[in-house]
């Protein structure tokens, strides 16, 4: 590896990690809004999102520059591809954070709907998944990454239950459809945070092992069907 390449990769790594810590801060703040909504905070979170967008563009440009100038191969190429993809995922998580904060404020306008404990729990789990996915990236630990992927199912279950409850509530009290829609949307957004965490974890598996496990179940099923 040339000096230039190694220095550029180090810089990319650093920018990505500082982006990840900022996004994690944002999503934590957004989730806290669910318990304690605050309109000003929500505006602040939305503003933070702009800085994340800039970082995303910066990382992508740097990645393309490294690719063009050094034409890396093997693990370096995988690293750059992974950094590019993780930065995209983080950018979307930041968008979701801004969105969740807005939903929380929307919910605050109708205090007759309490935030279900399950939603808080789900938010906590999803944010924890994101943290562990980044941990796996830092430690290049594909086992940890696989665990994150496996945890996604329980988040999906929780989301389904919450949405069922919300729909039942809508039938019961149609007058509260608007705040219930906020709740519905918040739950969906949190579920998407877990999805992005899973994507990051899958990128980490690719970085470490060189295999793409995304859509793994589909592929395996299709292959089985084709061979039979």
């Amino acid at each position, binding site marked *: 590896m040339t000096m230039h390449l190694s220095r550029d990769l180090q810089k990319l790594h650093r920018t990505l*990690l*500082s982006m990840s*810590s900022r996004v*994690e801060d944002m999503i*934590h703040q957004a989730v806290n809004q669910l318990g304690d909504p605050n309109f000003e905070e929500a505006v602040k979170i939305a503003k933070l999102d702009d800085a994340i967008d800039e970082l995303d563009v910066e990382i992508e440009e740097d990645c393309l520059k490294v690719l063009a100038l050094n034409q890396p191969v093997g693990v370096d190429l995988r690293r750059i591809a992974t950094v590019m993809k993780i930065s995209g995922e983080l950018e979307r998580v930041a968008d979701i954070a801004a969105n969740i904060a807005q939903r929380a404020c929307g919910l605050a306008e109708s205090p007759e709907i309490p935030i279900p*404990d399950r939603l808080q729990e789900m938010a906590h789990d999803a944010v*924890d998944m994101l943290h562990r996915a*980044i*941990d796996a990236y830092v430690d290049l630990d594909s086992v940890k990454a696989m665990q994150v992927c496996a945890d996604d199912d329980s988040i999906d279950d929780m989301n389904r239950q919450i949405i069922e409850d919300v729909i039942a509530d809508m039938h019961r009290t149609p007058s509260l459809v608007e705040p219930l829609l906020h709740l519905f949307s918040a739950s969906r957004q949190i579920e998407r945070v877990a999805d992005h965490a899973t994507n990051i974890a899958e990128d980490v598996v690719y970085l470490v092992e060189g295999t793409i496990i995304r859509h793994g179940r589909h592929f395996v099923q299709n292959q089985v069907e084709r061979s039979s």
Partner: protein
Amino acid sequence: MFRNATFWKLFVSSLAIAGFAALIAYRWDVLGDAAALLSALLLAAATLQSWWMHRRMRILLDTLRITVASWEDPDLIRQADRRLPSDLQEMLQPLHLAGNRLMRRVRSVERQAERQAERTELMHAVLTTVAEGVLVVDTDENVLFVNETARKLLDITTREVVDRPIWEVVRSSSIEEAVQTVLTSEEDVQRDVVMPRSKQVISLTVTALPSEPVPGAVLVLRDLTTLRKLESVRRDFVTNVSHELKTPLTSIQAYADTLLNDPDSDPEQASFFLSRIVSESERLHSIILDLIRLGRIESQEDKPEPRALAVGPIVAASIDDHGAIADAAGIRLLADPPQTAVRVMAEEDDLRTILDNLIDNALKYTDADGQVLVRWFADENWGIIEVQDDGAGIPQEKQLRVFERFYRVDKARDRERGGTGLGLSIVKHLCQRFRGSVEVESAMGEGSTFRVRLPLANTTLVQTTAFPAERTSTLSPAPH
């Protein structure tokens, strides 16, 4: 001996000298017939000389080898030295002196290194056990040292941390920024950081290591979570106490003003106003009484004098007293006594207060046709008293706070139900006074269970249950 090159060299040179001498003798016929004999003698002498020289050299070299190889063992050197002839011993003297000097030097360096290692170990132990979190980074922001507290506070899960960049290990934007500021500007940074995951408040001080250019920075972390919580509890208390005292006072003032301004008002209305004034001042009175009581428990003016108390009769008395209120509200107030009597270490008045407050509370938050159940039993070293209601329940995040003074789960509605907002706080402090505890278990819509834990009295002293017979039947409504 014969395989040794030195020996042969010596031998050949001695032989050459001997041969030369023999040749001269023969040439000039100095000795005549004795020449042959002389040659033989010279030959023998040459052999002996070579052997002797070789031996001397061998011993000398051996001694040198031992002196150099085992310079740390003076006994061995002395032993080897003794085998040398005295003239050779003198030759080796300077070497021995130099060796001794070297040995002393090495010993002192070793001792110093040992002391240094001890000191480093001590420093390490101090930094590891100190209550503050300590983390040291070099100029490239690589971690040089981190202690256990810092690991816990910063939520560092990876085992290998040393020599890795801090932004990779800690991943907190505010900490990263603080470290960068210190390393570039050399100005110390002091700020409070909230860890997003653990919600802990950490006071962070980043200081540049002394000397030029900056060789790194030290991060000192202190957990402020408890302190901050205490501060907020105190702040809340002041706000709450003023609010709680102001509300009844405002009503009293308003009613009194109305009566003053309109002396000829309808006597029925006047008597209504007066009754409101009385009830509001009663409320004020009970708040102040509770505050005084809480203050006394907290300051622990009187030392607790716990004695073995049977729980049964005290529960019975408390249930008796609350019977009328429960009947009026249409709530079933039940007792579920244990098989064997339970005796706890407490004071009678205080245990009664605990029970009164818990039952009072349960009755307040249970709707008509609900049920309040008091249960008590022994569990290992603890006497446990549970008061269970099937009211609205308390949301998860508020369960820990209900024991705070004036904390109300539902700010708007709770005051309507009466009560001073101090009952559970008093219960908590009384339990702690007897080294016990109180906790709440609750689910929304399913009611709450308050569980008091008090130390069990010595079980060998337990007498038969003193709980009145007519209430011992499980789950039967308490007769009022």
